[in-house]
């Protein structure tokens, strides 16, 4: 999905791109994919904790945009729209995974293996400090309930505004702020050992 030099210079907004795509410009859709692929992938990956599933969800997100392009209206920010689609699909994937896990619970034993930290992660020689820290943080994000997980990812990793998060999740700003605060309190408590080392 290469970008031509003349298109790079004009730097259209996301809203311009989706309008062009609604008018039949497929190149505009390529640019949308280029602009959002990485950030959506990170958002969904941090939410699901699995790259393969995250890529599948992000692809499905782009397909939904492709299929339902006429449903977008300029009254909303395009980023809000596409994040809402990705978030809904990620939550659906999470529910599907839980059903699968429920059905195969007898095979998994008493402990929930998704929440275990692998021996490789705990071995400092196996990975660099940065990668190890990332994995520990990711494991703790995964332990949060989905409603706390999604707000902290959107706020502290994706760095979206409270207002935009409120629109994406369709909940009041006050609720978003309260959830972010509680998610941070839980994470800092569980990551005490890691964060205190940073002093």
């Amino acid at each position: 999905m290469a970008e031509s030099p003349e298109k790079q210079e004009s730097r259209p907004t996301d809203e311009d791109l989706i309008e062009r795509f609604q008018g039949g410009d497929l190149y505009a859709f390529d640019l949308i994919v280029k602009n959002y692929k990485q950030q959506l992938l990170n958002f969904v990956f941090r939410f699901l904790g699995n790259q393969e599933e995250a890529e599948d969800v992000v692809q499905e997100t782009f397909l939904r945009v492709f299929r339902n392009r006429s449903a977008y209206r300029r009254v909303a920010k395009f980023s809000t729209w596409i994040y809402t689609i990705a978030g809904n699909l990620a939550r659906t994937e999470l529910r599907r995974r839980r059903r699968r896990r429920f059905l195969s619970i007898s095979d998994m034993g008493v402990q929930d293996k998704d929440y275990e930290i692998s021996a490789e992660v705990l071995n400092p020689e196996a990975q660099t400090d940065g990668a190890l820290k990332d994995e520990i943080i990711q494991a703790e994000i995964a332990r949060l309930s989905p409603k706390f997980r999604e707000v902290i990812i959107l706020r502290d990793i994706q760095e979206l505004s409270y207002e935009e998060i409120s629109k994406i999740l369709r909940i009041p700003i006050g609720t978003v702020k309260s959830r972010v605060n509680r998610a941070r309190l839980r994470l800092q408590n569980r990551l005490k050992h890691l964060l205190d080392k940073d002093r």
Partner: protein
Amino acid sequence: MNSCQEISELFSDYVEKTLVEKDRQAMDVHLRACAACRDTVGRIAKLRHNLKSLMALEASPDFEMVLRTRMRLERHRMRPWASAMPLSPVRAMAFAAFLIVLISGAVFSYLRFLSPGSPAFVQTSSSQANLSAPSPAKAAGATLAKSYQRYVYALEGVTIPDAPGAALRISSVGLAKYQALQVDTSAASLPAELDPVLVSF
């Protein structure tokens, strides 16, 4: 002084510097006196920094290729003809050539159909029609299991009888043609040259 529980609800606003002045001053007072809350606020600030610095995930090399394939399938599903024939001149010409061949074939088949001895199809109305004609199907000992199966015969509009010996029924469409060939319409069997040649619809 506010309790630690109450004050903890403002930690995020404090680290993001969005507290109103009055609340910020109250927080400062509390934090000077409470080491536990001070530590918590410090950890939240570090946590935010760590979350922002998490490594970005790289998409798989085939991400866009897979997406394009899925989009192509999607386009085909939504608009099969438009997807199969985008408006490129070369493809448009290829499509036109294909149409010409198709129409020519149809015209040729129709002209052949009008000539004596032309192929046409016949349909049975029986669930267990027994082909009494000396057909390949009968020679192989095959019987019909489903009703309304269709066969291609050398004549159009002929209905295979339910039982051996029953008269062949001919549709009004095929009657003139049948009579023109002077075939015995009351015969229980078809002439050998009218054997079925196709058994799938």
